[in-house]
C-alpha cells in the first residue's frame, strides 16, 4: 500500500479522540490506563485531544447502538483527513456480549469502513500500547497477513 507523507507523520504523532458508543465503561478505563505512568502512550507522541477536529485517530469503545450510530458517524466525518479508526474491545469489534440486542447495530464497522480491531473484554492497556507502537513502526500490515495475530482487520 502506498502511503502519503501525511500518513507517515500521523503514525509518528497519533492524536487520539475517545468515543464511547455504548459500552460498559470497562474499555474506557483501560484506555485511560494506557495514558497513565505504567504504559504512557505519550512516549509515542499520542495525546488525548478534546475536539475531533484535532484528532488523527478515533478510538471507539463499546458496541454501536442505534442511538449513538449517528453521533459516531458525525464525529468521524468531522475529523480532518487522513484519519484512522481503532475499535477497542470485543464490543467495538463485533458487538460482543451485546450482539443481537434490540438496540445494538453491532461493531464499529457498521458505521465506519476500515477499522483496526483490538479484541479483548476489556483489552489490556499493554495491547493498546502495542497496537499504537506497531502503528508507529508501520508493522500493522504485516501482522495482519500472518493470521492468528491479536491485531486483526475484520
Amino acid at each position, binding site marked *: 500500500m502506498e502511503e*502519503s*507523507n*501525511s500518513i507517515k*507523520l*500521523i503514525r*509518528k*504523532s497519533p*492524536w487520539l479522540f475517545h468515543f464511547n458508543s455504548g459500552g460498559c465503561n470497562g474499555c474506557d478505563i483501560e484506555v485511560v490506563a494506557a495514558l*497513565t*505512568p505504567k504504559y*504512557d502512550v*505519550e*512516549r*509515542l*507522541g499520542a495525546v*488525548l*485531544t*478534546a*475536539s475531533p*477536529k*484535532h484528532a*488523527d485517530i478515533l478510538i471507539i469503545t463499546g458496541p454501536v447502538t442505534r442511538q449513538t450510530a449517528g453521533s459516531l458517524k458525525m464525529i468521524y466525518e*468531522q*475529523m*480532518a*483527513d*487522513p484519519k484512522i479508526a481503532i475499535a477497542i474491545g470485543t464490543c467495538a469489534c463485533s458487538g460482543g456480549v451485546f450482539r443481537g440486542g434490540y438496540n445494538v447495530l453491532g461493531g464499529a464497522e457498521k458505521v465506519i469502513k476500515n477499522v483496526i480491531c483490538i479484541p479483548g473484554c476489556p483489552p489490556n492497556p499493554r495491547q493498546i500500547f502495542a497496537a499504537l507502537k506497531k502503528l*508507529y513502526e508501520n508493522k500493522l500490515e504485516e501482522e495482519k497477513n500472518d493470521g492468528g495475530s491479536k491485531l486483526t482487520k475484520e
Partner: protein
Amino acid sequence: MSSAPLLTSILTIVAGIIFFFLSFLFEWVERKAVARIQKRVGPYFTGPGGIFQPFVDFLKLLSKTEAISKGTELLFYRASPIIGVTLLTYGFLHLPFLSQSPVLNFNGDLLVIFIVFAFTCLSYLMAGLSLRTPFTVVGTGRLIVQYSLYELIFLSSFALIFFQAGSATISDIVRYQMINRPLVLYQPIGFIVAVFSLLAKLEKPPFDLPHAKQEVAAGWMSELSGRTLAYMRLIGNMDYLFSISLIVTLFLGGGSGPFASQIIVLWPIYFLIKALAIALVLSYIEGVAVRVRSILLPMRLGIPLTSLLVVQAVILAIWRMGLW
C-alpha cells in the same frame, strides 16, 4: 554605515529562525517536565528523548487537510495565525537574546510589548470567533475574562520596573541591571506576581479554563484543524517563549552573568539557562496543579495578586524616597 541595514536584516532572519525552533524546544521541555512530575516518561521515541516530537506534531498538522465547517468567517480564520506569528516574532526581535543590544530597538520600546500582547490576544479571539459554536463562544468568553484580568497584572509588574529603572527602553533596563543587580532582587514580589499571572495568561493549569477538557470540548480551539491549528499551537508556544524571555530580560538581567561581557557567546547561553529555569518552575506548578473548578476562583485570585503588586509599589516608593 551602509552595512547596518544589511546586518540588521541578517540578524532579524537569524533571530526569527532561532525563535521558531526554540519555541518547539520549550514545548518539549514543558511536556517532558510535566510527564516526569507525573511519573511518566513523556515523548520518547521520536528523536533522542523525543525531542523532535513537537516539531513532528507541527509538520503533521501542516500536512493534514483542513475540515472547515460551513459558516466560518474565512477572513478571521486565515488572518489570525498571520497576525499572531508575525507580531510575536517582531516582539522577540526587541529582546536582547543574541547579545546585549537587541536586533531592533528604539526609545521606549517596552511599549512594543503591550502591542504584541494585545495583538496575540486579538489573534486568539479572531480564531475562536471565526466560527461561533457553543464551545468556541464559551471558550472565547472565558479567555477574554482571564486574559484581560491577568495580562493587566502581568503588564503592571513591568510598570514597577519602569518606575525603578527610570526608562521604558529595554536595552536601558538591561544596562541598569548590569550596573546594579538584577531587578528580581529589588522586586521579588513583583517577580512572583509576574510568574504567576503568566500561567493564567498562557492558559496553563490551574488556569486552563478557556479550554478545560471535556467541559467545553477544546474551548476556543475546538473548530480549528490542519494548518490553522498548527499555527495557533505555534503561536501558543511562541507566546510561552516570548513571555519567559521577557521575564528573563526584565527581572533576571537578560544574559548577564560572570564573564558574559568578555566572552560574547556566553550571553545567549546564560539567557537560555535562565529561560529554561523559569520554564521548569512553570512546568512544576503545571504538573502538580489541579484545574480550578469554578471560573470565579481565577477571577478572585486577581485581587490578591493586584494587592501584592500594590504592596510592592509601596515598598519601592518608600525605598526610593529613602534614597533621594
